[in-house]
């Protein structure tokens, strides 16, 4: 046992001697939370808009004020001719332009066919549709107010109306979606990539051979390499939770114990992955590339962390099933965001456990083979 | 004629003095051995002479140029072979020669002719098209040396050129050094093989950053009443504060 402790100590020395690596290991989760939490947001804020208003009457003024006083929009300028719209978009100055019809106020009161065109910059399709939705909603509220003040008569019955409830995330904050994803990414990064690179490094430098001829069991040597990364991932896990609760204001809706158990399971899977990769390669750079291409990139793009899996082509959807991180993210969302219990994540837990065992078996087999 | 002149050369890294106020000179055509235990400051001194390190204080003139202010001119007149094998492993033998010859401005036609001559001399004709990584270590070292003197420098600096090489190849290597010396190239070589020290015209022995002895091998043996250079070296090294012996 004493030998084991010495080995573990050596691993910690390796990590903390290299200041850059230490810094990155500990700061990375903070950076990711901040970048993803704030950098990826579809919450519309202060989008600039321009107005072309040939009517210039009380109603158009009121509508522009309404848009401008919301948090979503900021008035950029009034245009003197519709021909200026093109130039504004080309410079990328505004998100949309609102074009009022002529004699707006009169048409609204008398003929009931006042016209508004919302011309949005469709370059970013999602933002464009969200913008027009919000602007439409604001204009409609103005109309409702008019109805209420009975300035114009309401046109009879309303027909079907829908009442919408947004479950789990009523204010539609992107952070709710992102936090579980970051957790998966960081744990994967630390456990799989760092472990595989550090084992490959020893192989490359030839020190692995020295360790293997020592009386220590190979299994324990590998285990001693895992302990520091395990510790660091626990620290990262705690950092992520603290940051998400206190900085991003994403509460932990479900059981903390269950969430922690789930994360430990995922750490186990990721560590096994790390060992498997390292038993297959001889060079650090190859370990880095393999884990980067096979684990990191898919984790970012295919796991549903940012982009909905359902929108992808079928082949990519199939591929996403073999990513452990995808199942972990689903399970974390269920427990942490939706506040559900164990029964809701049985399938995910079973899949992760299965994957972990298979990967570990494969890597042990591979590792023994390498020693002979 | 002196091709290297060093006066009170010193290099400090923080509070550690790697080279401590050394002075010496080397004559043209000489084979000058630069001896010392690991960490005695040999490589640091040599790197200063090659213009890779800036001295903390002191003066050095190599091939007539000041090492501090004219290091680029120094570089044009020397050859260098580092302790670590430094040819490109993913280039072929002739490609490495062509690259370095080109860098030093050897005309292309001359390079072509001399490459074949050189390879014939080394017995490498068949390896002309081989990648350097496929050659055994001893061959690579011989090739690296040939490349470092291909442009006929005034001086060639060799930093432990025979580390890890078998005795037969080492012998051949020294024959190549003698040939270079006959061509008028001054050879400045660091080593810790004491038998190699015997091949030098003069040797200096560094201990803890200082030069403790400098003379021809036979004179040194006489001075320390020793049977071999090995004994001379051990005698001096014992005085070191941080010797590993």
């Amino acid at each position, binding site marked *: 046992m004493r030998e084991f402790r010495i080995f573990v100590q050596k691993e910690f020395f390796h990590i903390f001697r290299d200041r850059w690596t230490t810094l990155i290991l500990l700061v990375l989760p903070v950076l990711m939370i901040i970048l993803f939490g704030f950098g990826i947001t579809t919450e519309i804020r202060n989008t600039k808009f321009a107005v072309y208003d040939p009517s210039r009457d009380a109603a158009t003024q009121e509508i522009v004020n309404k848009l401008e006083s919301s948090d979503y929009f900021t008035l950029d300028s009034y245009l003197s001719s519709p021909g200026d719209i093109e130039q504004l978009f080309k410079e990328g100055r505004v998100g949309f332009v609102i074009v009022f019809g002529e004699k707006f106020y009169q048409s609204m009161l008398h003929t009931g066919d006042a016209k508004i065109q919302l011309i949005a910059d469709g370059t970013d399709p999602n933002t464009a549709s969200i913008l027009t939705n919000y602007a439409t909603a604001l204009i409609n509220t103005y109309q409702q107010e008019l109805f209420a003040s009975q300035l114009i008569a309401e046109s009879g019955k309303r027909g079907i109306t829908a009442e919408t409830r947004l479950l789990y995330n009523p204010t539609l904050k992107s952070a709710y979606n992102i936090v579980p994803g970051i957790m998966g990414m960081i744990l994967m990064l630390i456990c799989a990539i760092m472990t595989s690179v550090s084992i490959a490094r020893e192989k490359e430098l030839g020190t692995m051979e020295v360790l293997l001829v020592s009386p220590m069991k190979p299994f324990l040597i590998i285990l001693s390499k895992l302990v520091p990364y395990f510790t660091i991932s626990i620290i990262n896990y705690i950092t992520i939770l603290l940051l998400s609760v206190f900085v991003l204001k994403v509460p932990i809706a479900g059981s903390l114990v269950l969430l922690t158990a789930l994360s430990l399971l995922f750490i186990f899977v990721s560590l096994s992955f790390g060992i498997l990769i390292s038993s297959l390669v001889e060079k650090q750079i190859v370990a880095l590339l393999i884990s980067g291409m096979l684990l990191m990139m898919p984790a970012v793009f295919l796991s549903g962390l940012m982009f909905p899996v359902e929108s992808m082509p079928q082949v990519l959807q199939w591929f996403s099933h073999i990513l452990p991180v995808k199942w972990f993210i689903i399970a974390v969302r*269920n427990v942490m965001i939706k506040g559900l219990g164990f029964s809701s994540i049985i399938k995910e837990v079973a899949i992760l456990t299965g994957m972990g065992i298979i990967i570990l078996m494969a890597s042990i087999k591979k590792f023994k083979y390498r020693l002979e | 004629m002196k091709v290297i002149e060093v006066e009170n050369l010193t290099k400090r890294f923080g509070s550690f003095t790697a080279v401590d106020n050394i002075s010496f000179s080397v004559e043209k055509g000489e084979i000058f051995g630069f001896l010392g235990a690991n960490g005695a400051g040999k490589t640091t001194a040599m790197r200063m002479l090659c213009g890779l390190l800036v001295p903390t204080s002191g003066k050095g003139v190599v091939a007539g140029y000041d090492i501090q202010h004219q290091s680029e001119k120094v570089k044009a007149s020397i050859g260098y072979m580092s302790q670590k094998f430094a040819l490109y492993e993913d*280039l072929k033998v002739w490609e490495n020669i062509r690259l370095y010859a080109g860098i030093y401005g050897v005309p292309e036609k001359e390079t072509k002719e001399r490459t074949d001559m050189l390879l014939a001399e080394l017995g490498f004709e068949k390896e002309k098209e081989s990648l350097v990584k496929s050659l055994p270590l001893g061959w690579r070292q011989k090739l690296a040396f040939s490349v470092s003197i291909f442009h006929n420098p005034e001086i060639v600096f060799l930093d432990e050129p025979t580390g890890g090489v078998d005795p037969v190849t080492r012998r051949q290597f020294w024959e190549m050094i003698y040939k270079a010396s006959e061509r008028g190239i001054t050879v400045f070589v660091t080593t810790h093989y004491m038998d190699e020290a015997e091949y030098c015209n003069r040797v200096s022995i560094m201990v803890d950053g200082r030069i403790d002895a400098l003379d021809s091998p036979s004179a040194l043996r006489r001075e320390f009443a020793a049977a071999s250079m090995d004994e001379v070296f051990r005698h001096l090294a014992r005085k070191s504060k941080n010797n590993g012996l």
Partner: protein
Amino acid sequence: MLKYLLEKEFKQFFRSRALPKMAVIMPFMAMLIFPLAANFEIKNINLAVVDNDKSVTSVKLVNKITSGGYFRLAESAATYGDAMRGVELNRSDIILEIPSNFERDLKREGEAKLFIAANAVSQTKGGLGSAYLAGIIGDFNKSINTQLKDGAITISPRFWYNPRLLYTYFMVPALMVMVLAMVCGFLPALNIVGEKENGTIEQINVTPVNKLTFILSKLLPYWIIGFVVLTICFFVAWFAYGLVPAGSLATIYLFAALFVLSFSGFGLVISNYATTLQQAMFMMFFFLLTFIFMSGLYTPVANMPDWAQKLSIISPLKYIIIVLRQVYLKGSGFTDLLNSFWMLSAFAIFFNGWAVLSYRKKS
């Protein structure tokens, strides 16, 4: 001298096992796979319907919703509770509950209510999904009741430059930038660090090769390869998506050159500080991540909190992505992009100046 060094770089590049393959595969990956995966477009939202009415109107409504392409009927639940179970198990994303007497109320009172509950963990899916659903219901409303008017104001949205709102049109020009950043910024830097680790750089350092020649010999090959790869990207985008720049290719090449100059400067700075490949890779990963997320690649910079917007000024990627998108989709010309031009020039001077100052041939 430069000639021999360039010759060496090209030989090494084409002799290495991975690099030439990568140069060919990368544009195809970036142009064909990424736009499909990195897609915020909302399709195939799983809908659970709790139809307590089971009338002609309710069935018609559900048909209309599920035939539009956005929604697919994942489940017809008997009760709201059952449907909720489905949401919990991620079988469905949105619940539509139709109350009993829906049709009767609509006919008798002229008014009827529906209930929508959306899983909003993903704001795009939940938020946009429920908005789409409400939109479809609104259309349905008008279609069954022709006397019904929107009110006194008609609002008609128009989407310029991308009327079909294709997400790929948004991503493809920006992904070209990523390819350029990898080839012209990272590869030469990793190459230099590799020479450091192998010790070959020391051999070069004792030769009369000067700083500028050495660095140029590292950069030029990757610049050339970078532009070839960029051109391949143009063709792939054309064949795969029919996407051609609305503006001029010359503008794109000009700005790409400026970006490449500044980003290789950034790579050089890293190569000056890193001593091992591992360190270099980590530093790059760290900065690239920051640059990307501050660049507006996925969502507009204007949506970010104020401090993040200020921080985004330091991301060179932001400016070149703007250029590529504007030129490709809107046909913006040089004068429309002056801001990006000045910023990229400033980055080029800053990074290259820093690289020259921090580069040491001797220490």
